[in-house]
């Protein structure tokens, strides 16, 4: 499966997002990851859903809209109006009635996706196999960016990959999200991830352009192939 780079806009320069996106276009990234967060589920306020239509006006890079909120459904009318073919990515612990939400997303011609926190078991995906196009696995907590990736989390990626492969959904993509570093990427891809959510350790690594950082990453991945 094609490896896709998905830089997280949380790590970009918030006061100059348009020029940041131009630089990411130059770096030919495949996806822009954006965290929609109030304090109903996460601890802090990040991007407002209202910024999504503005982003759609200036770029064709598909968005992965990570809804880290309670009651994400309230934002669906806004998102559905502009996000065809973008991932609408529901944090599974924040909602009840996930299949309904995923169906609404599919019917709106967006791509249904779910995110699982580190401690959430993969059995929550069991009944969702037909309804999702992408699963995003959090692999490090935001407060602990330097934790080494252990077997537990790597096996989780492998198990999710196998679960979908065994059920005729080889097309479902697996994203990994959480301080992904150059040292991590090979083992993550080997374990079955194909979307890499990237922050300050790779795309936004200081001292290099975003293009250089992405080229370096792709070079590392080629060595692997």
């Amino acid at each position, binding site marked *: 499966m094609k490896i896709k780079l998905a830089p997280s806009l949380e790590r970009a320069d918030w006061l100059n997002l348009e020029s940041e996106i131009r630089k990411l276009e130059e770096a030919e990234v495949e996806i822009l990851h954006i965290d929609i967060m*109030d304090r*109903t589920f996460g601890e802090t*306020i990040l991007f407002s859903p209202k910024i999504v239509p*503005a982003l759609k006006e200036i770029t064709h890079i598909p968005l992965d809209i990570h809804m880290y909120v309670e009651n994400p459904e309230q934002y669906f009318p806004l998102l559905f109006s502009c996000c065809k073919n973008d991932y609408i990515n529901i944090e599974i612990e924040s909602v009840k009635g996930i299949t309904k939400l995923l169906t609404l997303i599919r019917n709106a011609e967006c791509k249904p996706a779910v995110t699982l926190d580190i401690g959430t078991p993969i059995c929550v995906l069991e009944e969702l196999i037909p309804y999702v196009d992408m699963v995003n696995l959090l692999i490090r907590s935001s407060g602990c960016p330097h934790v080494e990736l252990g077997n537990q989390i790597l096996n989780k990626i492998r198990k999710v990959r196998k679960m979908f492969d065994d059920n005729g959904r080889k097309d479902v993509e697996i994203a990994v999200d959480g301080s992904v570093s150059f040292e991590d990427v090979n083992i993550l891809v080997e374990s079955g991830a194909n979307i890499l959510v990237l922050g300050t350790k790779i795309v936004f690594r200081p001292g290099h352009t975003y293009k250089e950082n992405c080229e370096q990453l792709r070079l590392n991945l080629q060595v692997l192939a």
Partner: protein
Amino acid sequence: MKDLLSPSIMCADLLNLEKEVRLLIEAKVELIHFDIMDTTFTNQTMLPIRMIPLIKKITNIPLDIHVMIDKPERILDTLLPYCENNYVEIHVESTKEIGSIFQQIRAAGGKPAAVLNSGTPITVLEELLPHIDMVNLILGNAGFCPRQPLDDQLLQKISKIRKMLDDNNRSDVILEVDGAVSFETAKLTKNAGANSFVLGTSSVYKDGLSVVKQCNSLRDYIK
């Protein structure tokens, strides 16, 4: 008292905020209104607290930080480091700890401000008068709601607050109005006693118009 313009940065182009702040510097505005909402007090999400230091890095214009969060005491530790020389507006409806919140804001170098939704009586200000540097009166309700017409009730409320401030030797307290403030609203509320104007899509952030020109025109209009 000098008229203070406080354009609301959340109404600017969110993808080019540095440029937008530079325009406000050019327009010589006195304040920059910064809305914080997390859906617990309004129905919207807006502007992360962590954006405050980014804006302060490029301008010395004081921010007018409007906190629209239920029980703001829960986020105070995050906010206090960014209070210095900024107005920090707390809704009296959002907390039972307003006195202690204002003390902490003052101790952190910030300027405490009380915000009232349109239905909140002005008597809530009575015990706060020695502790505040600004009152923001919402001409409606905070958040994105149906607009309320600017009627006599609201205009008299402004006059009553101005009188209350004057009668208590706090003529120095800024009286701000916020909520769909148009040129006409600014003029009427100024006549009633307001001297700071939160400005958004009804006045200075109109599609196709220059924010600098709009600010200048508004100053002339309410002179």
